[in-house]
């Protein structure tokens, strides 16, 4: 029948908890329905059929921060919006991730010098995991950003101490 048939004795699978948790997290990153400017149009293209973000388990755009894992800051963040962005981030349950999509969210973009109302990078308001370059970025660029985020989640430590090699559960006793 399936690929797994006769490969798992007694239907038992052994793995590391860290690997399992990270695998679960990176395989269903639900983004928040949230767009601020033209980057959001590209983000919608990524969610649509041709590029299909759902291949990475990240296609379920949630209409509330309380069900979202990922905030894609797609567009220009102005000071009036910055407070709302921060509040939305705080309403997301942990673990939560942020992608700064495009030049504006990364560092103010074309509004860096004369945009009196533009925040010079959303990382001044919320912590950013991945920056995606472009103005706006191609859909492929956002997909790569998503894969970079998956790599980051894959490396993250849930049970084992951060900084230890993968698989090591305990700090070795000092010799």
């Amino acid at each position, binding site marked *: 029948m399936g690929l797994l048939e006769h490969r798992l004795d007694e239907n038992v699978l052994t793995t590391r908890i860290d690997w399992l948790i990270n695998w679960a997290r990176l395989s269903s990153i639900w983004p928040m329905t949230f767009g601020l400017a033209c980057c959001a149009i590209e983000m919608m293209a990524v969610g649509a059929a041709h590029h299909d973000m759902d291949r990475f388990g990240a296609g379920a755009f949630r209409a509330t921060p309380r069900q979202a894992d990922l905030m894609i800051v797609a567009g220009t963040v102005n*000071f*009036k919006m*910055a*407070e709302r962005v921060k509040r939305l981030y705080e309403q997301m349950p942990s673990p939560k991730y942020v992608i700064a999509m495009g030049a504006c969210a990364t560092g103010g973009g074309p509004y860096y010098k004369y945009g*009196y*109302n533009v*925040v*010079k990078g959303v990382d*001044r*308001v919320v912590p950013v995991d991945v920056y995606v370059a472009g103005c706006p970025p191609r859909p492929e660029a956002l997909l790569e950003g998503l894969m970079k985020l998956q790599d980051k989640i894959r490396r993250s430590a849930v049970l084992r101490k951060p900084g230890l090699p993968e698989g090591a559960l305990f700090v070795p006793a000092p010799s």
Partner: protein
Amino acid sequence: MAKSFEEVLGRLQALGVPGVIASLDPEQASKADPLAPVPARKPGTKGPFGDPHLLVEAKRIPEVLRTLRDDPELRFEMLADVTGVDYAKEAANLGVIYVLLSLAHHTRLVLRADVPKAAPRLPSAVEIHPAANWHEREAGEMLGLVFEGHPDPRNILLSDDWVGFPLRKDYEFPVEYHGISCV
């Protein structure tokens, strides 16, 4: 039916609307007869003050707009835009621009009112043209214009506690807003 700028001028002259200083080029308007037509420029050319427009006394704006809207010869029944201009840092006045459209006669008209920067107050046009509501809010927050009699004079784009008027030539950028660095 008033089609051209000169015809609109002529009609206003015939009606005797107070407060209109008519001109293609406000600098050259005749002081003795401000409504006297100024020769039209060649189509497609622009003078030092842009497109042909009427210079209107700021406090007379509502009645001029009302006449332009209601007169069967004029029928400028749509207000397409209200905006403000800060011409220069050292200029004494701010300009307020009204762009009117006559759907009936398929023609446009631009009005300009000058208000002193020291006291930039003028009456609101919301009663005559409800479309002016949001335009006046934007012009107000961007240039510090005060539209007297506006039903809802809150900021429309900027935060309620924003300091300064961003489209003024002497505007200084904020250094910090609610703990977020602006530089």
